[in-house]
């Protein structure tokens, strides 16, 4: 499978792995700790601070590496939550049908009629911005998108003749969901997983940038942009570096997801999947 990989997807995969490596081994590869002040505010690049210093003189590279850990962890947890919640409920709604489907689908319609960011801000105006709250808020709000997709795919599959054939055979719900529907719903859902993760990264970064996401002394990439944004006006590009890191991560994952999405048709039949 890797042999047919186009260059773009290869670069995407490489960068994604690099970011993951940073996140996992942050304490070992970061030159300094998160909070250590190593120089004056907004010093330019030097041998001591490879990417310069931040608004109070901490090493930007170290903070970026630790920030990768925070950003990726929270985004990944939120994505996992969104995914398990959304796909389980979505497929269940499609298979159960009737009032259970109606209840869940109308609830999701209601949640989706408020823009996600606005709804998150509403909740964060009364709840503290702890990591747990962020994960739950982001995960639950984003699960509505996964729910819609999972339900649409499952409803489509549920009326296929092969599922009807299984019903006529007398198969129970468990077989129908896990052996007939799920294997066929997996490809589109996996492609969606990448997109949801990107969304979570961007969403968390936006919240932190607005000062309502990760709170000091912790810092994710969005917080780093927020801390250093004043420098832009003085011509100090420190804020652009974490912003570029967010973009690079999102683009990399997107390239990989796009490649997987194109493989989908291949996965449909045959043994290559």
């Amino acid at each position, binding site marked *: 499978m890797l042999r*047919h990989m186009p260059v773009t997807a290869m670069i995407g995969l490489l960068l994604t792995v690099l970011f993951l490596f940073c996140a996992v081994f942050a304490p070992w590869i970061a030159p300094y700790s998160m909070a250590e002040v190593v120089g004056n505010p907004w010093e330019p690049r030097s041998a001591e601070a490879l990417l310069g210093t931040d608004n109070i003189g901490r090493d930007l590279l170290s903070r970026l590496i630790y920030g990768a850990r925070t950003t990726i962890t929270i985004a990944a947890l939120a994505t996992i939550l969104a995914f398990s919640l959304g796909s389980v409920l979505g497929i269940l709604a499609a298979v159960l049908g009737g009032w259970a489907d109606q209840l869940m689908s109308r609830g999701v319609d209601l949640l989706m009629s408020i823009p996600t960011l606005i709804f998150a801000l509403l909740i964060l105006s009364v709840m503290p911005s702890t990591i747990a709250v962020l994960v739950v808020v982001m995960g639950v709000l984003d699960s509505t998108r996964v729910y819609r997709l999972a339900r649409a795919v499952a409803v489509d599959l549920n009326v296929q003749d092969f599922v009807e*054939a299984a019903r*006529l055979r*007398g198969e129970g719900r468990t077989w129908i969901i896990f*052996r007939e529907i799920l*294997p066929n719903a997996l490809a589109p859902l996996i492609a969606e997983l990448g997109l949801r993760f990107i969304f979570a990264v961007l969403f968390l970064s936006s919240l932190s940038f607005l000062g309502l996401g990760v709170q000091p002394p912790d810092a994710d990439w969005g917080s780093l942009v927020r801390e250093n944004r004043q420098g832009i006006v003085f011509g100090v590009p420190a804020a652009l570096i974490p912003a570029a890191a967010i973009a690079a991560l999102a683009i990399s994952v997107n390239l990989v997801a796009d490649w997987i999405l194109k*493989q989908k*048709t291949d996965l449909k039949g*045959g043994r*290559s999947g």
Partner: protein
Amino acid sequence: MADQLLDIRNLKIEATLRPPGEKPHDVTIVEDINLSLPRGRVLGLIGESGAGKSTIGLSPAGYGRGGVRITGGEINVNGRNILELGASSMRALRGKEVCYVAQSAAAAFNPAHRIMDQVIEATLWHGLASRKQAEKRAVELFRKLGLPDPEHFGERYPHQVSGGQLQRAMTAMALCSEPDLIIFDEPTTALDVTTQMDVLAAIKEAIRDTGVSALYITHDLAVVAQVADEIMVLRHGKMVEHGETRQIIENPQQEYTQRLVSVRSIDHTAKSPGEPILTVNGITARYGKAGIGKPVLDDVSVAITPGQTLAVVGESGSGKSTLARVITGLLPPEKGNIQFDGRTLKAALKQRKKEDLRQLQMIYQMADVAMNPRHTVGTIIGRPLEFYFGLRGRKQRARVIELLEQIELGPEFHERYPAELSGGQKQRICIARALAADPKLIICDEVTSALDPLVADGILKLLLRLQEEHRVAYLFITHDLATVKAIADSIAVMYQGQVVRYGTRDEVLAPPFDDYTDLLLSSVPQMRVGWLEEAFSQRRMEAQGN
């Protein structure tokens, strides 16, 4: 040369395939085609799916669908090679000299515009007539093609008229600009059999009256025999045989053509009915709420004898497929009940016992969506064995291979996925899956209508053989009377939710007929020249006799 309207030499057509994950590559889909068509003649292009008949048919318009390119030879229309034409000369050719009638007029008409505007569009665009003249001509064509209220027919939108009417309107659209050549691409395939006959007759008359030449593309030899002066038989993009219609039908030279002509000539002796295995008693059913609107099934009663076949025949909307849904328990009826093997079946699927489900199996029309694409053939056939008989492991495998043998497939199919099978093989796997449950009755819902004639014949023969060996009864649902004659012991003719004629095969197919059965029987194209005219003059005589 001047009297040759169309002259195709050494035509070669290639297409670029882009399978995901692989490099795009070119394949030849049509090769070595030579044909010439004088003015006023109709050439039938016939072949199974993948024969390249549509691709060849569209080439005189210089048109190729999705990545298809004409890469060799020449196509002369009115004495000039159209492959050398520039874009604007090509546009001048299309819609003026060469017109096209698509298989699905419902999709080929733009839903946003009135029919009239679309019918006269090419005529106006090429500056062949004023709007007033064009509309007048269109109304005349509507009248000639037997459309209702021809003066005002064009004011309607495509979704406001029926499929058969749209197909005629599309023919009017092609005729309106008085072209030299019309390409008919399976124009009657999507229609019900009774509608097909009318449209076919209208097309034939219009061709004769206007003196236009035509390429008539179809997979149905009996249909093309009615309209074409000559026939070209195609297979895998190459010509098999080309000759006068009468010669092809009555005296085919090639073995492949002979098989095509003799298709559906399966015969078996109808058995007389005995004590039934399944009795349907006074079933009334409808979708949606009880008591509202017209029921889809209205007081339907039929019975099936063990080891025999009951064919349920009807056109779309007759309720024949709904009957299958009621018998399987997918749609509980409002009234009536079903006796199976001496006991009354529960109305709803969920209340039925596993044993009832096992003994009553079903085969679907579209084999490729009736199998889970993620399961291997081994799982597909093995699951009923495990589910009903608890057969696992090596025993299950041995039984699956035995079943594969019965459907004339080798053990190597055990590991394959549905995507790796041909259409006929898929349907065989579905038959094996039904057989695995060792049922007493199999419901066959249009099981051959999505298949090419020769493949369908193979499936019918297989079903007949399996019936002999296993004494299984079939409820055979179909719109195709030729299939019915081949396989049925008893027949029920359905029309608008009711059984209008019911009895043994020989009773049902012998006169005196009721009106609907008569219409149905007389509408099935027969494989001989001149059938269409005879059928119509017969109808006219009957109408006068009344």
